[in-house]
């Protein structure tokens, strides 16, 4: 019985799923609605009524019957399908669906109100005389006792000139005999008879034949134009005395009443004509329309989520490939047996190819069209816009875009929520739209498409947009973020606040989208799917959410990492960058704030998660000088104080550790600066490998043991016993046959208790710290030595390359030195040329630092060790000042001279500029006024100096506010503004915005200068109205830019 019920419910749910769309179409077409469609819905309601009656689901039966009455009135044009009618029907079918989801408790459902509404609706369309018929029953005498039927049904039967029969039937015959299910039985009945009631009478069981193993006795009350004989045929040739006529055909003429049994045995009867009646009857061809496809009769008990429909074509492809695989295996065996290398390699190729194809086809079987999710949206939007009194035009694009089954299922809820949000909060009401001069009907678009190996789903509205400041204010009011942290936030940052837990934009929480589920839940769900969401919103213009999804979840490129001998896979999509902290950097870059370790990465503060902590792996460390590992009792990486290293010891030349490999600045450094293996090995025991990972909006640092290869891994689900571990998204089998767990980056952060850092109070503190650090100005210096014990430095940005050379490679011509370099000769300078202290030309550790001066390359001689360091120490521009040396700084308790290549060249070879033919540069400036905003004394002095040398007149200011005041003062003279980004009081972005928004200054060209250009900065700069970006000490480029802009 349970099996039958399950089959019936599966079948019913499948029909219910399509009804919604049908009803919406019916509503749209109004009076001209397709009768066939109404009939289809009616037929489904009819079958549900029958089946639920059979299973004793009285509540379901009654509701289905109520819906049926309305649908019948639509079919007979008694009623027009307007919004009110369809609303009620949708409501009824929704309720049916809910009840069928849980048939066991459906009897407890209280549908009285809904039934009453259906009844009222039907009644309002009936003529006065018939109104009463809705609530009246007519009693019939039957051999099995009195039987009551709703009068409204009886009236209809009379009207159609049909007869009413009571049929005692045992469904077992039909079900067992034909392999049918209950739903299909009632469905097929529809072609020839209308079911009025279905009664399971347990008392009757005894009177039936006993030889049946599983009797399923029931009494059916049907209305049909047929006579007893064909009816008997309809019910598996039951005995005629089991068919009792309760009501004869009406008096109205019914010329076509006679039916041959032949027509009935035909699986798709085409000519079951109905008697003409005063009401336009349904054309019979419709009633007899082809039954719904029944191919899925074999549906198992498994829930719908565990099964998948796959096209036969795909299965055939799979079969073919499997066949080929078998062939190849046989070949492989032969090859192995014969030890035939040639054959082996050809088989290898073949198997390779088949595997790839197999993988491809199997992937395809998992794909489902987006349409499956989109199908419910018209209804959602329609209901919601009606409730809110808004007019919305929903456009759906890309139904055919196919995605992995799990993605499709997982997308449904988040998308629905976002759609609701768009209608509720995004789109304005009609009067408001008119006031704003927008078209009265709100536009809502949901679109799916493929883009660069990813699937994109976009939900866009033309509503009011997200107001970043209002969002920020609201977040502060709710105590989600600190007031101070707002200042540093960009517009997208502020808009992303809606993803914070506990955030809701509506001032009043409506019952529509404010259901206690916020965008944070949407975000979490999308994270789990590997999706990333972006917001593009313009105030007053609308909002668009872009969701990026991996095309398939089953195979993902991943980075294999290891922690304490265990290997894990991190999906590549989650990885932002990888970095390695050398032991001596660990204490500088990792800090403990509150209870959490954080990593300082450029201007970001990222929470640090230690793998070993989250997963409870015992950390060990390599015992120096042995192969043993011991348990590391230091609780935090940041506690590992690196041994103090003197300059002489830091020999490695590495790119600055905090610049990502992906960044232009560091990739340049990587090309030119040779790595030295020695350093790596020495520090391997305590260096920290860190992966910066992201879930889309939340980024954090994950400290791992070591990085390995990138592999395309096949995701295999974990067993039930491990399903609750959200930190893993599955497992995969690595090339060597062992199993590695795949990390769920979102789940891992949840487990570690890391939430969005940019929103928390702690983050506010950190951001403030980071801010002060930035304001202190950090310099990148390339350290080298002149004479031993005489450390010198060049600003890193000015160095293009480092070359190792031997003393004999230096050629002397008089007092000038050159070396062969890239097919030409490179002039060489030395610090000693200006300081006069100790020549180094015979040193065996010679290096040449190549820079560009006035468009020509020039080399500076130095000796090893060479290192790149970051320092915040102040630069003393006086004590050691002399031509060629701009100043000095203290690094690791030693004085380091900072050289300036331009000055060196000028000092050593005063004729350089003339010979270089760069004399034009001097005239470019020609007294043009340039405003320079820069808070660092060193950089300001440097830039001012070379600008003035080029003939510009420089007005300089130490912060944005001062610069703005100065600009207003010199309004008519300033031609170009050069500004630093990070400054106290008013930063570069803000200064730029102010300049752009003031009509007096809007047209001024602005150049932003920075010590390192990051992509995110570039984007922000563009948004603030800054067109040009230069590196502070790249004199040539900056001068060229100023020259060009001031003309």
């Amino acid at each position, binding site marked *: 019985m349970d099996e039958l019920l399950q089959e019936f419910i599966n079948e019913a749910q499948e029909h219910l799923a399509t009804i919604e769309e049908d009803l919406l179409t019916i509503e749209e077409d109004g009076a001209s609605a397709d009768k066939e469609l109404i009939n289809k819905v009616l037929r489904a309601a009819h079958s549900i009524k029958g089946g639920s009656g059979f299973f004793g689901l009285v509540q379901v039966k009654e509701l289905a019957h109520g819906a049926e009455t309305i649908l019948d009135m639509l079919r007979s044009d008694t009623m027009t399908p307007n919004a009110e009618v369809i609303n009620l029907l949708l409501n009824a079918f929704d309720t049916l669906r809910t009840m069928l989801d849980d048939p066991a408790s459906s009897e407890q459902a209280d549908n009285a109100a809904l039934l009453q509404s259906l009844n009222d609706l039907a009644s309002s369309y009936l003529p006065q005389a018939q109104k009463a018929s809705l609530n009246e029953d007519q009693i019939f005498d039957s051999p099995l006792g009195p039987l009551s039927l709703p009068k409204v049904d009886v009236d209809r039967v009379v009207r159609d000139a049909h007869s009413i029969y009571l049929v005692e039937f045992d469904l077992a015959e039909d079900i067992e005999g034909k392999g049918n299910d209950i739903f299909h039985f009632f469905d097929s009945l529809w072609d020839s008879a209308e079911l009025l009631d279905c009664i399971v009478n347990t008392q009757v069981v005894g009177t039936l034949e006993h030889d049946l193993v599983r009797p399923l006795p029931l009494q059916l009350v049907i209305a049909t134009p047929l006579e007893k004989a064909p009816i008997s045929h309809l019910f598996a040739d039951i005995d005629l005395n089991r068919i009792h006529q309760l009501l004869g055909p009406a008096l109205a003429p019914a010329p076509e009443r006679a039916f041959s049994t032949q027509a009935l045995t035909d699986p798709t009867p085409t000519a079951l004509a109905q008697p003409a009646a005063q009401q336009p009857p349904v054309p019979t061809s419709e009633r007899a329309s082809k039954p719904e496809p029944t191919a899925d009769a074999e549906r198992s008990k498994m829930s719908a989520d565990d099964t998948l429909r796959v096209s036969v074509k795909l299965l055939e492809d799979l079969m073919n490939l499997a066949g080929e695989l078998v062939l190849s295996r046989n070949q492989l065996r032969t090859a192995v047996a014969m030890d035939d290398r040639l054959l082996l390699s050809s088989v290898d190729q073949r198997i390779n190819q088949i595997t790839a194809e197999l993988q491809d086809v199997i992937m395809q079987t998992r794909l489902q069209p987006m349409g499956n999710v989109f199908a419910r949206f018209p209804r959602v939007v329609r209901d919601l816009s009606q409730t809110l009194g808004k007019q919305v035009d929903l456009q759906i694009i890309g139904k055919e875009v196919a995605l992995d089954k799990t993605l499709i299922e997982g997308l449904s809820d988040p998308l629905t929520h976002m759609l609701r949000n768009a209608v509720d909060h995004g789109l304005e009401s009609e009067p408001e739209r008119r006031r704003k001069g927008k078209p009265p009907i709100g536009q809502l678009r949901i679109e799916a498409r493929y883009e660069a190996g990813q699937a994109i789903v976009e939900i866009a509205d033309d509503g009011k947009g997200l107001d970043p400041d209002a969002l920020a204010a609201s977040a502060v009011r709710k105590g989600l973020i600190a007031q101070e942290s707002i200042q540093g936030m960009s517009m997208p940052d502020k808009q992303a606040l809606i993803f914070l837990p506990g955030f809701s934009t509506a001032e009043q929480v409506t019952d529509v989208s404010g259901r206690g589920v916020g965008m944070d839940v949407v975000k979490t769900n999308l994270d789990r799917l590997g999706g990333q969401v972006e917001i593009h919103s313009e105030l007053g213009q609308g909002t668009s959410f872009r969701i990026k999804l991996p095309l398939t979840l089953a195979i993902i490129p991943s980075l294999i990492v290891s922690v304490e001998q*265990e290997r894990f896979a991190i999906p590549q999509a989650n990885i932002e960058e990888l970095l390695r902290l050398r032991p001596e950097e660990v204490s500088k870059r990792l800090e403990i704030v509150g209870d959490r370790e954080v990593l300082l990465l450029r201007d970001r503060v990222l929470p640090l998660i230690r793998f070993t902590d989250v*997963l*409870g*792996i015992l950390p060990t460390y390599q015992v120096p000088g042995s192969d043993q590992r011991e348990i590391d009792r230091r609780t935090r990486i940041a506690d590992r104080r690196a041994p103090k290293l003197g300059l002489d010891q830091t020999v490695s030349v590495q790119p600055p550790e905090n610049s990502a490999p992906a960044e232009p600045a560091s990739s340049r450094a990587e090309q030119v600066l040779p790595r030295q293996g020695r350093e790596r090995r020495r520090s391997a025991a305590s260096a920290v490998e860190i992966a910066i990972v992201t879930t889309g909006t939340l980024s954090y640092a994950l400290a791992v043991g070591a990085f390995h290869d990138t592999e395309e891994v096949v995701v*295999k*689900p*974990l*067993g*039930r*016993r*491990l399903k*609750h*571990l959200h*930190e*893993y998204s599955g*497992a995969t*089998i690595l090339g060597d*046959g*062992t*199993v*590695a*767990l795949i990390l769920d980056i979102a789940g891992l952060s949840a*487990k570690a208790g890391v939430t969005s850092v940019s929103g928390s109070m702690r983050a506010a503190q950190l951001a403030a710290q980071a801010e002060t650090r930035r304001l202190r100005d950090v310099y990148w210096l390339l350290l080298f030595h002149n004479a031993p014990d005489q450390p010198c430095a060049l600003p890193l940005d000015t160095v293009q390359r480092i070359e190792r050379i031997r003393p004999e490679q230096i050629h002397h011509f008089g007092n000038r030195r050159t070396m062969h370099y890239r097919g030409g000769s490179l002039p060489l300078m030395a610090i000693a040329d200006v300081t006069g202290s100790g020549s180094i030309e015979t040193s065996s550790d010679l290096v040449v630092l190549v820079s560009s001066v006035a468009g020509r390359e020039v080399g500076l001689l130095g000796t090893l060790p060479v290192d790149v360091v970051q320092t915040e120490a102040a630069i003393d521009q006086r004590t050691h000042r002399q031509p060629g040396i701009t100043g000095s700084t203290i690094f690791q308790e030693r004085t380091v001279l900072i050289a300036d290549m331009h000055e060196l060249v000028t000092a050593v070879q005063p004729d350089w500029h003339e010979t270089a033919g760069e004399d034009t540069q001097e005239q470019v400036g020609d007294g043009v006024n340039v405003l320079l905003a820069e808070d660092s004394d060193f950089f300001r002095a440097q830039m001012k100096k070379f600008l003035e040398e080029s003939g510009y007149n420089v007005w300089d200011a130490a912060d944005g506010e001062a610069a703005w005041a100065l600009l207003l003062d010199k309004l008519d003279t300033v031609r170009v503004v050069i500004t630093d980004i990070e400054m106290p009081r008013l930063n570069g972005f803000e200064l730029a915005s102010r300049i752009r928004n003031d009509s007096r200054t809007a047209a001024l060209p602005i150049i932003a200068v920075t010590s390192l250009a990051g992509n995110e900065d570039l984007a922000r700069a563009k948004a603030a109205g800054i067109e040009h970006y230069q590196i502070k000490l790249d004199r040539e480029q900056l001068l060229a830019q100023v020259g060009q802009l001031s003309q």
Partner: protein
Amino acid sequence: MNATSPPKEKQLVTAFRLCGGLFAINAQLVQEVIRVGELTQVYGAPDEVVGIRNLRGRIVTVIDAAAHLNLGRVEISPEARLLIIEHQQEHYGFLVDQVIEALDLDQDQIEPVPSSLEPALRSRLLGIWRHTDELTAILDPEVLFRWPEKQ
């Protein structure tokens, strides 16, 4: 299969050693017996889950049968084996100390579980088979897949 309906006539069981005791389970359920192989530890997993391993491309959840039955823990020795049992389309490997043999048991050789046994263990057994001096406890396979509520 449950405790109220003792196995009819003959039953083939796989006998194994677990923390010193002898146990047996319906051999038809055991798809294969394999060596422990390389296990991948799953951090954060329930106590009885020793790890996961690859079995011809399938991920098998390896359960310490002793831990699961509250008997102690299986020491992974060269004798240790995994009994591969499928349950609800998933493969489990039950880690046992040693697999002895497959036994053909007569129904009437199986005695009811003595009430002196610890109730927790008793509820997991179908019966006891007495042979020479040793008792073999026959495990109820249904109970094998009943997990404690998540703590």
